[in-house]
């Protein structure tokens, strides 16, 4: 959903808050691709994208009635997605601690007709995987076109702190990308 569709989005969120399933379905459809992309950027796990995205939307449906500021819906949704991804990564780290010998296997996202060089995409994926999950989330939000104020709200930090973290994360991404390419 584009930002210009704000009144439509507000109405959709309001209907979804009232428990209308058709509105909830439309809301999920409107955001599923962006949330899936966001989840993939943070976790780097293509085989977990669908499960984690599903958890994000289930949490969204259950917590939606508690959302006071409908205008903040997007920032709220992406904060929910970020927290879900970080919880997932934390759980995975604990699981690895208890079964360190288990080899981690996961299917990579299948190749599709591309508009971007595959090597460059691989380098981007590799560079992203070198960053901390919270920094990946910041860069993903910035790439989605969020303003620094919105990103600061979504992360619960000040705009000044956000600028500093975003600058550092971008520098690191550029550094890792240049080494990967």
């Amino acid at each position, binding site marked *: 959903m584009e930002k210009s569709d704000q009144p439509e989005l507000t109405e959709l969120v309001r209907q979804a808050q009232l428990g209308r399933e058709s509105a909830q379905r439309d809301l999920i459809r409107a955001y599923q691709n962006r949330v899936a992309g966001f989840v993939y950027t943070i976790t780097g796990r*293509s085989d977990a994208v669908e499960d984690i995205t599903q958890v994000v939307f289930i949490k969204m449906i259950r917590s939606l009635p508690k959302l006071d500021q409908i205008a903040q819906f997007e920032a709220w949704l992406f904060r929910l997605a970020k927290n879900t991804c970080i919880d997932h990564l934390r759980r995975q780290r604990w699981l690895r601690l208890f079964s360190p010998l288990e080899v981690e296997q996961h299917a990579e996202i299948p190749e599709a007709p591309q508009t971007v060089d595959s090597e460059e995409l691989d380098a981007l994926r590799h560079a992203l995987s070198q960053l901390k999950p919270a920094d990946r989330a910041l860069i*993903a939000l910035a790439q989605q076109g969020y303003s620094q104020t919105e990103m600061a709200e979504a992360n619960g930090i000040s705009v000044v702190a956000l600028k500093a973290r975003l600058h550092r994360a971008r520098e690191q991404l550029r550094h890792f990308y240049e080494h990967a390419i």
Partner: protein
Amino acid sequence: MNMPFDPLAWRELENRAAQQLHPLFAENVLRAARKAAADEDRTGFRRSFAVSAITATLCLSALLFVHARNTREMSAQHLAAWQEISADYAVLEPTP
């Protein structure tokens, strides 16, 4: 191309991730949400039932304990009274 911040590359990543979603993803989410809510209701019912059962058991135990103690005390009092009466009777009874 402004890699690694080229919007096209990021769109490509998003598209690839979106391909992982089932065509009926939204419907599946709604179904899973409904199931989770129903499970929670059931768990909530079980929890309240368990709390009620434990409370009832505790109350009944307390009631039985108090009742047993009172009965014991009353029996002791009655026994003492009877012993007193019996002693008085023994004093009053004419010796053959």
